[in-house]
């Protein structure tokens, strides 16, 4: 009887510290563990006792890659408690800064972290040796995302201008208008990216996923909408915990998300959003997807790199429309007055649905905090993919199989820093 073990102690090109362990006995995968050894950071515990107004800046520190997801998730939950409704211009500015985060994060992940896998290169620096202009264009795309974050938020990592009720200061019209020409270039470049990635070789691999994403009545949902699945779920975000929960498994410092109904894992992120909100994409984004060979639903997670390019195109088009229609709001923020209660906030981080729930005391101090990041929810789907990827590729040489496994994990753009509140690869070959 042959037992093989694949082991990767510290996964690369993911954000945070994770590992993979796969055990194979007689051509059957007997154990898959996607471990998270990023140390626990206890955000939910130390948020207790803090003032509601402090939560956005503290929660931002969960993740340097997607701080807006954490700031805005906390803000929306607090506004839910306090009964604050913001004006359309404030809501538009929120969508604009979130588009910036999507462009920055997708630009970074597609070109610098994921594309090298498809080209057999170790990293983007090797890619730069082969095609320097390509990497320069990728870096410019990423920078345009960061420019939006800086102009609206003050800085790219942990922006300072967002608060419960809106913004500390309205960006000046002239500052926002400066983004116009760059965004026009970024729209064309994202379209070219989708075409470029569609030429990669994709492993023949599909799964019948349960997808979960936010869905909005008009927009390709980013920061507002209802929780919707491809299996009939359609509920307000306040019912998140009625349908989803997390459990604690031994090999991980991240809690693993699961659906209360049914036993199958669920998938968040680009594939889920694309399947659920295909009809909300712009005509140009839909056309780009079509010419890149994508149908209205994509079940091959390796093709997520193309979907991310389509989403980048959508985010650039949305951002351009918001920039062109921008007028400074009459006031940068609505007034928030402390009161007791429970509130929920849910947005689409670049990696998927990120949920916040807070309970406040009458004076506005936090009594209870719950944050469920996308990567902890995707862990079971990642393990499930790994199991099938390994079983389908047992003929590959150990090094090639290990690389394929790493690639399968990177399909999810996992953000491990977020999930610990989350990765090392071990495939045992004996």
């Amino acid at each position, binding site marked *: 009887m042959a037992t093989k073990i694949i082991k990767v102690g*510290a*996964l*690369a*090109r*993911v*954000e*945070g*510290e994770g590992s993979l362990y796969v055990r194979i006995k007689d051509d059957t995968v007997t154990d898959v563990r996607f471990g998270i*050894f*990023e*140390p*626990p*950071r*206890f955000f*939910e*515990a*130390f948020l*207790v006792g803090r*003032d509601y107004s*402090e939560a956005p*800046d*503290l929660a931002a*520190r*969960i*993740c*340097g*890659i997607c*701080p807006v997801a954490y700031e805005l998730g906390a803000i929306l939950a607090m506004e839910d408690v306090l009964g604050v409704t913001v004006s359309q211009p404030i809501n538009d500015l929120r969508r604009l800064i979130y588009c910036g985060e999507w462009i920055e994060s997708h630009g970074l992940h597609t070109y610098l*972290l994921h594309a*090298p896998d498809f080209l057999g290169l*170790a*990293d983007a*620096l090797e890619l*730069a040796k082969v095609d*320097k202009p390509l990497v*320069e264009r990728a*870096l410019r795309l*990423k*920078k345009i995302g*960061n420019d939006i974050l800086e102009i609206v938020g*003050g*800085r790219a*990592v*942990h922006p*300072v*201008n967002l*608060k419960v009720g809106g*913004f*500390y*200061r309205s960006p000046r019209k002239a500052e926002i208008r400066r983004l116009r020409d760059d965004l026009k270039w970024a729209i064309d470049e994202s379209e070219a990216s989708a075409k470029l990635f569609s030429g990669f070789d994709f492993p023949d691999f599909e799964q019948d996923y349960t997808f979960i994403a936010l869905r909005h009545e008009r927009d390709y949902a980013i920061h507002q909408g209802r929780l919707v699945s491809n299996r009939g779920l359609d509920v307000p975000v306040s019912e998140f915990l009625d349908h989803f929960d997390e459990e*604690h*498994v*031994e090999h991980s*410092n991240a*809690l693993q998300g699961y659906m209360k109904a049914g036993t199958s894992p669920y998938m968040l992120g680009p594939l889920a959003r694309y399947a659920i909100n295909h009809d909300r994409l712009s005509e140009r984004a839909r056309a780009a997807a079509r010419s890149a060979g994508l149908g209205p639903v994509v079940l091959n997670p390796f093709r997520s790199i193309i979907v991310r390019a389509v989403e980048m195109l959508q985010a650039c088009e949305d951002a351009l429309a918001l920039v062109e229609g921008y007028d400074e709001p009459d006031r940068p923020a609505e007034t928030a007055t402390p009161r007791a209660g429970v509130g929920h906030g849910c947005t689409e981080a670049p990696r998927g649905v990120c949920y916040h729930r807070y309970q406040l005391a009458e004076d506005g101090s936090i009594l209870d905090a719950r944050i469920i990041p996308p990567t902890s929810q995707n862990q079971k789907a990642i393990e499930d993919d790994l199991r099938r990827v390994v079983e389908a590729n047992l003929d590959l040489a150990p090094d090639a199989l290990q*690389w394929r496994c*790493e690639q399968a994990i990177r399909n999810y753009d996992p*953000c491990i*820093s977020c999930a610990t*509140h989350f990765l090392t690869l071990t495939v045992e070959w004996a």
Partner: protein
Amino acid sequence: MAPRKRPKLAVWKFSSCDGCQLSLLDCEEDLLAISEAVDISYFLEATRKPAKGPYDISLVEGSIATAHDVETIRQVRRQSRTLITIGACATAGGVQALRNFKNVKSFISRVYAHPEFIETLDQSSPISDLVAVDFELRGCPVNKAQLLEVLSATLNGRKPNVHKHAECIECKMRGNVCVTVAKGEPCLGPVVQAGCGGLCPSVGRGCFGCFGPTETPNTAALAEKFAALGLDPRDIQRQFRGLNANAEAFRKESERHGN
């Protein structure tokens, strides 16, 4: 002439949000130039092909939070000619050092169903508590321009030109209206080290201390000012207990206003 051997750069991560190493990738226009000036030998966030040490420069992000971290940072120090810590986690223990003021066991049981699976130390500590550090770059996150300056200075064998004066001075140089004087907003600017460029006051809010305490900060006088503005002891304590809560000057001041 044979090409000069490029210095080897390693980027390490401990307990953190990845934001400071991302700041290195965010040096978009300079990133390829950096990669030409140094041999990026170990940078897991960016490459799956780590090269073996020793390294000429190690950039270290994150705080020490597990027994495993303690072992790893000692190995990193042994392999590194120059060790530079980047960000509030590495230089002061970070936001996760808020645990240092509480009972960690109660924290674990609040977040995790099976506390017995979780390995963590009671304290989140800065790197300098464990090993010798050659330069500490502050910030939550670090400032990209300062990061480039520190790299460039180190490569050229000179002292980094990073000012240690108070944020207040930087803010005045930017021409901001003082939020404390004009609006009665609490602001940590007088006791926080410069680095961000006066970011928060420029959007009309008080500084909340991303860059940690400046040299010889008069935190007691500032706490008095906060009291005069009408903050109660709990609010004053929270001002000092943020992203750099474990930095000595802020820790001591916060302890004067309650447990």
